[in-house]
């Protein structure tokens, strides 16, 4: 019963050929039924299939350059919040009333990952309105929720599209969704799908039974690597402010303030800050399993120290002992704090644990920064 309508921008119109062109360019083909006033066809839509008296977008399963650039953009943290697609029902291939219904979030990066894994799979994709946030985070924030799932099932009339009453929901959505309530309120049974989209084909082929590896979270070097750019980008604004303040305090002396002195001293303390940031935002994620300690603030202290020690060992003669101390303490405090912040991006830290280490880590970081500040500011007054 499905009617395939290919999206072809141009069509040969006999009339346009025979008659002389008059005012304006040659005639475009007549508008398709799925074209609606005020709507545009998205680039990832291949065509539309007609089912139950409506047109459902059939999406492409290969990513184009724009999709890849978009992924890089959000990984760099540029305009992350605008990276979403309209919620609702989509499909891949030519699904029928027995095809599986996969549930997903409306973060475009998640959507792209999912569809690129659905080559030669005919299925329905029900996209929930998670405000452009991925399944895991959205489930934690309860936008990927029981209510939203029920709402979309009803809104999209899934009952008209399929005869079965099964939904495949990614297992990572489980914190937000209560399977027995969904079943009670809209009659659909939830099967928990694999954690990673790349397992979805095997999962479907394996009678919708996940095997152990599909249900286990991982945090591989690659998975950690892609998080680093964002960790760095998120620090830019506070870092600029701190750098400005450091410039200011570097110039304080007996004559209140000397700009020349500020310019000479500032690069060193800024270097301590930079090394601390490198230790906390790059080295900690990268070498996470091999850095000793379980608390992230401790891991950050270790990487911060290993970054800054070579600098102080260089025996920069122009620096006083107090200044060395200040540089080390800056690097330690910043690295520890940045490392502690990385807990939010890892899939194995519990909020109780993070809170516990913060109660120890934050006072320590504050002490490091205060020592650094005191040592840095007093040096010019010591008259050495």
């Amino acid at each position, binding site marked *: 019963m499905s009617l395939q309508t290919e999206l072809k921008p141009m069509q040969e119109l006999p009339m346009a050929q025979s008659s002389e062109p008059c005012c304006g360019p040659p005639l475009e083909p007549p508008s398709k039924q799925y074209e609606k006033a005020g709507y545009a066809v998205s680039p990832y839509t291949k065509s539309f299939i007609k089912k139950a008296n409506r047109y459902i977008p059939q999406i492409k399963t290969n990513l184009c350059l724009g999709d890849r650039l978009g992924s890089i953009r959000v990984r760099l943290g540029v305009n992350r919040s605008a990276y979403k697609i309209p919620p609702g029902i989509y499909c891949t291939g030519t699904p029928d009333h027995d095809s599986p219904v996969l549930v997903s979030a409306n973060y475009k990066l998640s959507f792209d990952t999912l569809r690129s894994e659905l080559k030669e799979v005919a299925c329905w994709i029900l996209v929930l309105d998670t405000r452009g*946030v991925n399944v895991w*985070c959205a*489930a*934690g*924030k309860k936008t990927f929720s*029981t209510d939203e799932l029920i709402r979309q099932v009803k809104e999209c009339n899934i009952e008209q599209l399929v005869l079965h009453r099964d939904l495949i929901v990614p*297992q*990572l959505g*489980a*914190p*937000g*969704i*209560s*399977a*027995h309530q969904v079943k009670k309120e809209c009659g659909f049974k939830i099967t*928990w799908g694999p*954690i990673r989209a790349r397992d979805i084909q095997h999962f479907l082929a394996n009678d919708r039974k996940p095997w152990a590896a599909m*249900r*286990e*979270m*991982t*945090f591989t070097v690659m998975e950690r690597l892609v998080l680093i750019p964002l960790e760095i980008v998120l620090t830019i604004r506070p870092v600029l402010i701190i750098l400005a303040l450091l410039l200011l305090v570097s110039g304080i002396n007996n004559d209140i303030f000397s700009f020349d002195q500020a310019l000479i001293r500032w690069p060193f303390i800024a270097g301590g800050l930079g090394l601390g940031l490198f230790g906390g935002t790059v080295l900690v994620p990268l070498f*996470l*399993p091999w850095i000793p300690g*379980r*608390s*992230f603030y401790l891991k950050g202290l270790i990487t911060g120290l290993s970054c800054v020690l070579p600098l102080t060992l260089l025996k920069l003669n122009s620096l006083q002992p107090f200044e060395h101390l200040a540089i080390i303490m800056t690097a330690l405090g910043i690295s520890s704090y940045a490392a*502690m*912040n990385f*807990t*939010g*991006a*890892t*899939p*194995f*830290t*519990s*909020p*109780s*644990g*993070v*809170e*516990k*280490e*913060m109660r120890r880590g934050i006072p320590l970081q504050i002490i490091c920064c205060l020592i650094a500040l005191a040592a840095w500011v007093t040096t010019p007054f010591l008259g050495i």
Partner: protein
Amino acid sequence: MKTFRYLENVSTLLLDQEGCIGCGMCTAVCPHQVFTMENKKSSIQDLDACIECGACASNCPVAVITVTPGVGCASYIIQTWIKGRDAVIECC
């Protein structure tokens, strides 16, 4: 997750084994394999792997699991300290 272990004895996860009906839902949703099923009863076998995501608690049909769910993220927690638990918080 065997390669990554976090702090010990901090999870707020509790299971009342008496009421468990052995449906196995908790073992299906937990991303860190915290539960095992023995003789049609679920039990906590790896408490320290729990990340308090709340998936098990919201999917136990007889509500015998409790956990204080939250987001394991430092900047999120700092904001709850400053603005209070129920505030609207910008995060990940």
